[in-house]
């Protein structure tokens, strides 16, 4: 079939040019001067502190959004209330706001000219051009990820199992831990890894509030930018290759989770034939 072959051919060329080549380029450029240069670039103190700061920010931002995601999904998926559609739209809002605008709004609130600027200065608290501001900006851009994953999933699963547990005398937390969580665990994991990938890789928003102090307020993506602009190509791509590796791991976990999720849904569907499979 010529049509089939042509379409597959075009698709593969497109994927090859736009996805495989850029990915391959990162690793090739990183290793262009051999493993030693690659290793040296990662061992360098500024690179190392950027890696540590990236992890620190992620470790704070992801759990915050995890708690929020679970709460928002519970309220939105399990209950009916006025303004629900509006609330769901607001949860999605950070997705459509430019990262640069996301950074700017925190400058307007906490910066020297901002609402709380004078008060913060008087009390010697630094938020903008310091780590707290970078955490806030990261929380903003990764805000909807987990809620977005959980809401449709919990809506599709309905309330019957939770109601049954309640009739049997389970408390709210027991219902969540024993009934809801096992049903949503793969979706939850999926949301967490997407949130994590974005938190570690965020550039625009963090760039606005960072101040770019080497060794202090540089995350990995910001460090990549500095090295690249200083024409230290190998070092820039070495740090970038860590982030690309993170992206690859994310994709692998995502594929596994999707497969598990499908199996779980199929099992649920087999248990109760009336329930529509979504």
């Amino acid at each position, binding site marked *: 079939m010529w049509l089939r072959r042509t379409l597959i051919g075009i698709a593969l060329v497109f994927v090859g040019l736009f*996805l495989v080549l850029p990915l391959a380029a990162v690793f090739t450029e990183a290793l262009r001067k051999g493993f030693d240069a690659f290793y040296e670039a990662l061992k360098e103190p500024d690179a190392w502190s950027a890696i540590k700061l990236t992890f620190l920010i992620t470790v704070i931002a992801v759990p915050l959004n995890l708690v*929020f995601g679970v709460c928002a999904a519970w309220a939105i998926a399990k*209950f009916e209330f006025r303004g629900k559609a509006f609330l769901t739209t607001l949860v999605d809002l950070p997705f459509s706001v430019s990262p640069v*605008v996301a950074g700017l*709004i925190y400058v307007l609130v906490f910066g020297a000219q901002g609402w709380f600027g004078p008060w913060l200065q008087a009390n010697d608290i630094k938020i903008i051009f310091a780590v707290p501001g970078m955490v*806030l900006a990261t929380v903003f851009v990764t805000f909807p990820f987990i809620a977005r994953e959980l809401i449709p999933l919990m809506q599709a699963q309905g309330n019957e199992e939770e109601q049954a547990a309640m009739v049997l005398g389970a408390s709210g937390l027991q219902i969540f831990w024993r009934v809801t969580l096992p049903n949503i665990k793969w979706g939850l994991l999926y949301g967490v890894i997407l949130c994590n990938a974005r938190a570690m890789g965020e550039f625009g928003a963090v*760039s606005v509030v960072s101040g770019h102090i080497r060794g202090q307020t540089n995350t990995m*993506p910001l460090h990549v930018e500095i090295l690249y602009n200083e024409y230290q190509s190998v070092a820039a791509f070495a740090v970038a290759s860590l982030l690309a590796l993170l992206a690859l791991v994310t994709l692998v976990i995502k594929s596994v989770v999707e497969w598990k999720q499908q199996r779980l849904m199929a099992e649920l569907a087999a248990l109760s034939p009336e329930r529509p499979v979504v």
Partner: protein
Amino acid sequence: MSSLTLFAPRHQPARVLPGFEITLGFTIAYLSLIVLIPLSALVFKTLNLTWEQFWQAVTAPRVVASYKLTFGASFTAALVNAFFGLLLAWVLVRYQFFGKKIVDALVDLPFALPTAVAGISLTALLAGNGWIGQYLEPLGIQLAFNRNGVLIALIFIGLPFVVRTVQPILEDVEKELEEAATCLGATRWQTFSRVIFPTLAPALLTGFAMAFARAIGEYGSVIFIAGNMPMVSEITPLIIISKLEQYDYAGATAVALVMLCAAFVMLLLINGLQAWQRSRSGASS
């Protein structure tokens, strides 16, 4: 929908499960603290400007040139993604081939790869001495450090949206409809354009709008490859950054408000499209 919920009285107390007040309360409090109050700062700070100041800031020639580039390139990139996204979704759903699973997983790469990494990597490929650039430069084609670079970066970051919105709908298209069309004498192209495409149209438009919305705000991947020449290849988010670096907070805020309004419009549009899609698929089943 089961018959039980269908016939339940509308005013029935639906809140049987515990935890409604506390989860909703926390959701609204967190949403307000992280998103709504900071965003409102943008509006309030702009109110400090006079109308003339605001208008001057958002219609300066350099800013207008950046709108044209940002919106134009985003639109073109979303169009390219609509075409190739539909094709990719079609190939992934309808055909079996070697490496299909890997291609399917790779489609999400632009979601997972940090934008700065995408930016320097595309630049390295397309610059005059890059893997692709070295073959194109003798032909007089320059893809990096100009508007073409902006377009390519935006195609990259918007790539997954159309594929991921169209794919599930395409999987649900009933084979019977196509068979019926073929039985009634439709050609393959007629079957596609009259039977399959109308079913996919809402999803395709949603994906297009999402790719467009994402592209408007994109910063990280573009700035490395764009060359960032004022009036030529400078995107609007970069204008905001450079105004900030010159301590022109008022100007940055005004331009950011324009971007925020564009984001709001896109968000409402996408919501509308998704509702349309749901009503479509609800009506067909």
